């Protein structure tokens, strides 16, 4: 009981953390500090509740009578929600600390208070979404979250690009909400109440419709391809700590929604899991392919979020298949991988966004091809960024690997060993996962190489330097968590297992145990060994050849007379070969210069990768609608005679419509 109340109190604290600042003068930093203080305090309070309920026992259902015709105020915390709640109580708090200097009140007097208000509201509403056990309450919290995120992301609405991105987001999220409204109405129609308790029996068709509605509605938020259209723009437009929260936590609300609904639905045909597996694979590969094509630091990170959502979805799909076929091991590995990756991505993606924010803060540019050589100027940020990049590529010994490893194990097990039947179609997805892994390496090597390594490509980076401690500390915390979870994954497993058991309504769900199937001990051991080995080697080379005494020279320029910094391999050229590989999907548009004559004038080459779904399909559709619909305006041309004629006409039409029904 107390756990739930702690969390509810935390939700209140978070939601209203921005309010005091609104009552204070525009330039006083006190309001922002209070907000951060409230965020941190509330998060700690909430974490205490989470820690209590991760243990497995569901906290009792708290119901408060609610004066609405439909729906009640019913909240409950079970391990599944607790796992996500942890993320909600970690990332936003760190983000608000980061915001103290990143979005300092004195520098943004016009927007800071509004940002603080909606930032807190966003965090609180996300927590509310996770504990809600009633459809209407869920919807309310959900929409508050969406709207708060909109306002937090569009604080800089002077900028047309921000407005556009925000508008696309708003339309997308509203479309998703419409699906969810339909879903909950159908849910009530099928189960007789809005209560989110597991439903007993249900016609397969209804369950299927509910499932599809859930995947669509929540998919909009999670960013499943092709419902991801809003994601890159919004993440690029938002302030970096807001992007961190959106990408690290808010996308996961979509994942949570799908998990919750699949947990509640009684039947689960195999095609559900198959659909999710396919969607996950497509989302993953396409997401990372688009990421490679980006020239904008934050857009790239946003697309890689889409990829990670794809990986999570694969895990969920595997678990669903396991549930349909009654295979606890697949459920354990799939769900374990999904949940673990939810956390992992919730740690390293905010880390990367905060790092990107630090760069943006000091260089005021997000264009990869204007950056470069930041490693020499911002060494601390670079260390964290590299950690984040290695983690997000799923490479050992960091946390990203563990999740993908579990997923691989699960997918390989669907081959079916020895006697037990398999589901090899699922196993083939492992190859997609492998491809994603390799492409992620390509993507983030490009990112690191273009931003931090080499030499500066423009004077934008000249005054760049490491950010103040208040911005470093959150990154430190996140990076530390990444390393810790990478080296000691078994620490997180019990919580994941509990959550998986709550999700899987299997008869033998008690037998679900990840540790039994996956030797995580080896992972830690080898991870530590690897770290030690690298450390020893590095130490040797450091002792044998101290940096200061070793000779220095310019990079070998292959005999070119005057190599300039512009001659470096740019981000676009690094990505080009892969972009060409996926040209069919990415549809890169490039503008080739024509060069003739002995001494040609300076020519420019430029290649852009736009979003195929958004710029190729959605926007044209809207544009044509915008052209077509106004044609109907000829119907309203101010001739009052015509208007009277309409009245006569509709009388006749209505008489006709009435007669159609074959009245006695």
């Amino acid at each position, binding site marked *: 009981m107390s756990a739930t109340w702690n969390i509810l109190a935390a939700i209140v604290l978070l939601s209203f953390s921005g309010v005091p600042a609104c009552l204070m003068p525009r330039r006083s930093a006190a309001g922002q500090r209070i907000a951060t203080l409230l965020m941190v305090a509330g998060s700690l309070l909430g974490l205490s509740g989470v820690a209590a309920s991760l243990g497995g026992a569901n906290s009792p259902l708290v119901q408060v009578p609610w004066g609405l*015709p439909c729906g009640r105020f019913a909240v409950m915390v079970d391990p599944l929600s607790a796992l996500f709640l942890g993320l909600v109580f970690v990332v936003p708090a760190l983000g608000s600390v980061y915001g103290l200097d990143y979005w300092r009140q004195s520098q943004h007097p016009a927007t800071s208070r509004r940002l603080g208000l909606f930032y807190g509201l966003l965090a609180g509403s996300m927590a509310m979404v996770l504990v809600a056990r009633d459809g209407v309450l869920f*919807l309310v919290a959900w929409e508050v979250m969406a709207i708060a995120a909109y306002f937090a992301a569009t604080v800089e609405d002077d900028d047309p690009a921000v407005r556009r991105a925000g*508008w696309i987001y708003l339309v997308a999220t*509203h479309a998703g909400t419409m699906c969810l409204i339909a879903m909950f109405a159908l849910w009530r129609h099928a189960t007789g109440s809005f209560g989110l308790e597991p439903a007993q029996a249900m016609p397969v068709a209804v369950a299927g419709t509910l499932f599809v509605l859930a995947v669509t509605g929540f998919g909009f938020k999670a960013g499943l391809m092709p419902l991801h259209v809003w994601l890159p723009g919004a993440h690029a437009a938002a302030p970096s700590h807001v992007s961190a929260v959106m990408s690290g936590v808010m996308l996961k609300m979509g994942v949570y929604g799908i998990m919750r609904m699949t947990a509640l639905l009684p039947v689960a045909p195999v095609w559900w899991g198959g659909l999710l597996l396919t969607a996950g694979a497509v989302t993953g590969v396409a997401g990372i392919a688009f990421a490679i094509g980006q020239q904008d630091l934050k857009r790239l990170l946003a697309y890689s979020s889409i990829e990670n959502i794809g990986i999570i979805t694969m895990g969920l799909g595997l678990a669903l298949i396991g549930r349909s076929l009654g295979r606890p091991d697949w459920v354990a590995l799939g769900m374990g991988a999904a949940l673990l990756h939810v956390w992992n991505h919730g740690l390293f993606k905010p880390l990367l966004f905060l790092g990107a924010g630090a760069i943006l803060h000091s260089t005021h540019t997000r264009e990869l091809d204007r950056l470069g050589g930041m490693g020499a100027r911002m060494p601390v940020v670079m260390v964290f960024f590299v950690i984040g990049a290695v983690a997000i590529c799923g490479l050992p010994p960091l946390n990203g690997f563990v999740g993908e490893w579990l997923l691989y194990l699960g997918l390989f097990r669907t081959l079916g060993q020895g006697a037990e039947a398999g589901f090899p179609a699922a196993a083939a997805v492992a190859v997609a996962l492998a491809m994603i892994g390799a492409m992620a390496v390509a993507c983030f090597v490009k990112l690191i190489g273009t931003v931090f390594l080499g030499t500066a490509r423009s004077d934008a980076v000249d005054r760049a330097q490491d950010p103040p401690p208040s911005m470093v500390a959150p990154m430190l915390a996140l990076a530390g968590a990444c390393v810790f979870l990478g080296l000691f994954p078994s620490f997180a497993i019990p919580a994941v297992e509990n959550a998986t058991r709550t999700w899987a309504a299997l008869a033998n769900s008690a037998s679900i145990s990840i540790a039994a199937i996956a030797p995580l001990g080896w992972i830690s051991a080898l991870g530590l060994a690897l770290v030690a080995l690298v450390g020893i080697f590095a130490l040797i080379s450091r002792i044998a050849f101290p940096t200061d005494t070793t000779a220095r020279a310019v990079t070998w320029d292959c005999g070119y007379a005057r190599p300039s910094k512009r001659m470096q391999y740019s981000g676009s050229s690094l990505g080009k070969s892969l972009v060409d590989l996926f040209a069919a999907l990415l549809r890169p548009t490039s503008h080739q210069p024509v060069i003739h004559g002995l001494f040609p004038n300076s020519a420019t080459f430029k290649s852009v990768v736009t979003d195929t779904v958004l710029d190729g399909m959605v926007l044209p559709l809207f544009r044509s609608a915008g052209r077509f619909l106004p044609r109907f305006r000829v119907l309203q041309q101010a001739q009052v005679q015509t208007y009277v004629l309409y009245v006569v006409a509709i009388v006749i039409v209505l008489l006709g419509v*009435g007669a159609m029904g074959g009245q006695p």
Partner: protein
Amino acid sequence: MAFVLICFPLLMAALAAVVSSNRVRPWLLPATALVHVATTIAVLVQGTGVSTGVAWLVLDPPGRIVLLQVSVLFLLCSFYAVGYLRYRRDQTNRVFCACLLAFLGVISLVTWSHHLGLMWVAIEASTLVTAPLIYFNRTQRSIEATWKYLLVGSVGIALALLGTFFLAYASLHAGLDSTLTLESLLEHAPRLSKPWLHAAFVLLLVGYGTKMGLAPMHTWKPDAYGEAPGVVGAMLAGGVTSSAFLALLRVYQVCHAAGDDAYTSRLLLFIGLFSMAVAGVFMVGQRDFKRMLAYSSVEHMGILAVGLGIGGPALFGTMLHVLTNGLTKGVLFLSAGNIHRDYGSKSTDHVRGAMQRLPLSGTLFLAGFLAITGSPPFGPFISEFAILNGAFDEGRFVTAGLFLFFLLVVFIGMGATVLHVVQGRAPTDIHRTDYRDGFLTGAPIVVSMMLVLMLGLYIPPPLSALLGDAVRFLENQP
């Protein structure tokens, strides 16, 4: 009670016509409104035992709801009007105040009347007293708007009268002596002659639908709402429409009692969805944000019609929507009026960055937009969601799907305009008028927004009880 509610405003209107001071006169509005609200609440608290001697002056639950909504909205608007008229010292507000007060009186009469002929008279009267309000600005455009309002409205309402006569004839045809009081019609409903009843329903639907502004009889609406002052727009969209819908409710009730649900619901769903579609189509790329509000009103009349057409389980949501829609429309029209006054323009070509120039009005306009498009946690969400659930309960999945789709279309069409108005940097080339957000022009909107928010999070038990009564009454259950 009835006397106070109906005649007191009319007397005050007469008083307003004789008061000479242009400065004092507006204060008659809040004074009257306060008395009216107090009486209304007294009546509502007094419960069902309210009846006048006359058989055709009864205040039934649906009437209570509309009365409550109109009275509250009028109270807010009256204070706003005082603040508004301060900026319109340039011309006399004698007619304005008198008509506004008279309007309150006749609308109260609508809510009380149980005689369809009387109800028709009252609604026609409401048309006539609102015409000078639309004409308040004395511009060519406002003349045109008034002309169309009067002509289209009168033609429509004339059809309503014909429909009323048909209804009476239906009872005459049933061998009874012809009657138009609701009670006797309900009593003899099953015996009414079907063809005449159906014809009457169509004519009444068209007639009162014209007053509600259902497509395609909505043509006067964008003109009138666009040209009238914001406060008048609020009263039209929150008062006239509700009273006309109340009239439609009476007819629906008679047909329901006659067991003609299939017929009525077919027509209501058709015209309701058609109105939502038309609203969506005309909102796309709408550059005049007051006309846009008019189309939003068309859409919500469509929603009410759909809710009524679904009937049964959706009635609760429909009655609730009367309240939520009326209040939210108040927020939108009043804040839009402020923005219009400040920029001296209501076209998105000139109006940008309202949240910078008018933080209060701009924010309220945005909030009102979110509310009216059915976003939680605002009132309209609850009512529209209840209607949707009703549709599912009735197994009308196609209707529900179209309903949601049109809501989305409207959201997109409306959002583009609203965000364009409130966001961005205010244009510097447009010089500000002398308008500033003041207490009188700000507070009423805030209060009304608070009410909308409250209805989205918590519906007071007495109110939900009242709504329940209304539903039972409409379904002719004792």
